[in-house]
């Protein structure tokens, strides 16, 4: 099964996402911020990155830019978890290299439906 890197500084969101994805059979690596995620992405193969935007140390937008600069992540799907339904943050993410987004709040079924569209 594909491996997903789930990045969120909120412990409850991280738990919910990890529990949902593992329950669906995915391998999951979790990270608490961009710095942690970048370190884990460098040491393991990841098929999809799911990242929150507002995080300490390194935010989601910076993480996307850093990942896209790594040879192994040039074409890897990267989805942002954003509370903003408007366009500004999405456009910022897209310009950084994000594949798409999932708007918070979302429930486990919505999360899985989106993930499965990307990792068919």
């Amino acid at each position, binding site marked *: 099964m594909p491996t997903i890197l789930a990045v969120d500084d909120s412990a*409850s969101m991280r738990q919910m996402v990890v529990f949902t994805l593992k329950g669906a059979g995915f391998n999951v690596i979790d990270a608490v911020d961009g710095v942690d995620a970048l370190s884990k992405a460098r040491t393991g193969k990841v098929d999809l990155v799911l990242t929150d935007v507002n995080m300490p140390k390194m935010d989601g937008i910076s993480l996307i830019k850093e990942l896209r600069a790594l040879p192994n992540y040039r074409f890897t799907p990267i989805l942002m978890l954003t509370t903003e339904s408007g366009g500004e943050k999405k456009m910022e993410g897209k310009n950084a290299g994000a594949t798409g987004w999932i708007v918070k*709040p979302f429930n486990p079924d919505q999360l899985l439906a989106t993930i499965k*569209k990307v990792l068919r």
Partner: protein
Amino acid sequence: MSIDINQFLDTFYEESFEGLDTMETELLALTPGEADEESINTIFRAAHSIKGGSGTFGLTVVSDFTHVLETLLDEMRDGRREVTQPAVDLMLASVDVLRDMLSALRDGNEIDAPRVADVHGQLEALLKGAEAGAGEGETVLEAAPVEQEQAGSSRWTIEFKPFSHLFKSGNDPVRIMMELADLGTVRASVNLDALPELDLLDPEECYLSWFIEVEGDISEEQLKDVFAWVEDDCELSFERGQIEASAAADQDVAATEDVPPTRQGNEEGEAKPPSPAAPPANQAAAAKKAQGGESGSIRVGIDKVDALINMVGELVITQSMLN
């Protein structure tokens, strides 16, 4: 699979109380008139997490309240609003309200609704205060008339021309085709006109474009959702034609022969001939083909496109290994 997300509520409460403590500490350290970017960012992130989590866990009374507070902080963060003592005092009061709200929800007690409404109102008044006058003299725009959705099965014709950088966003036309196939019956023609000779081909660039027909009970909103992630990475157009149920079966043969679909039916279900003034794009393509002028448009199954793109992916990997 149905997951009970309430099992994560305890963690949410715990991190929210920690976040509120952080907000309080940082707010007390703020100096009015000075925008300490890192402090405001820290306060914003804590409020943002509480808003996101409470929305996810269905605590809308908390997420609604935090939304106003977060907006205020966002304006301070962007330098659009000055950090004043009254604003800091109000945000400290908001932290107290949030702490009480979360405690009440966690313990199954009643929320002090009048107090919540009072502070919520003060936050909104502060926000609107900065906007006062901004709306004066503005023309109220009438909402554009919303096109009434046509009921029943439709045939959508879609022209999808990805920009060459599409793959670099991690997007893949095959995923989009598969999503369309989830909505209805898809027929796609790939246009190879932009495909260079093999020795000039950069496997990291997208050279292909598609003319797609998709049939089913599909709204424009659903189609837009499918292309939402790539709308700025391509040229895209949709055109809708209505299909009469009785005529749909008759059209199957024509469709497989790449004959342009006949636009049929209006909202009353009457058959309509194609407009001679504005032929659908596929008609133009067919006309071009009939004139012997086309050389680069073929109809290819999604599975073959998938296989082709997989092969290109393998080429990229092999090339990078060789490098």
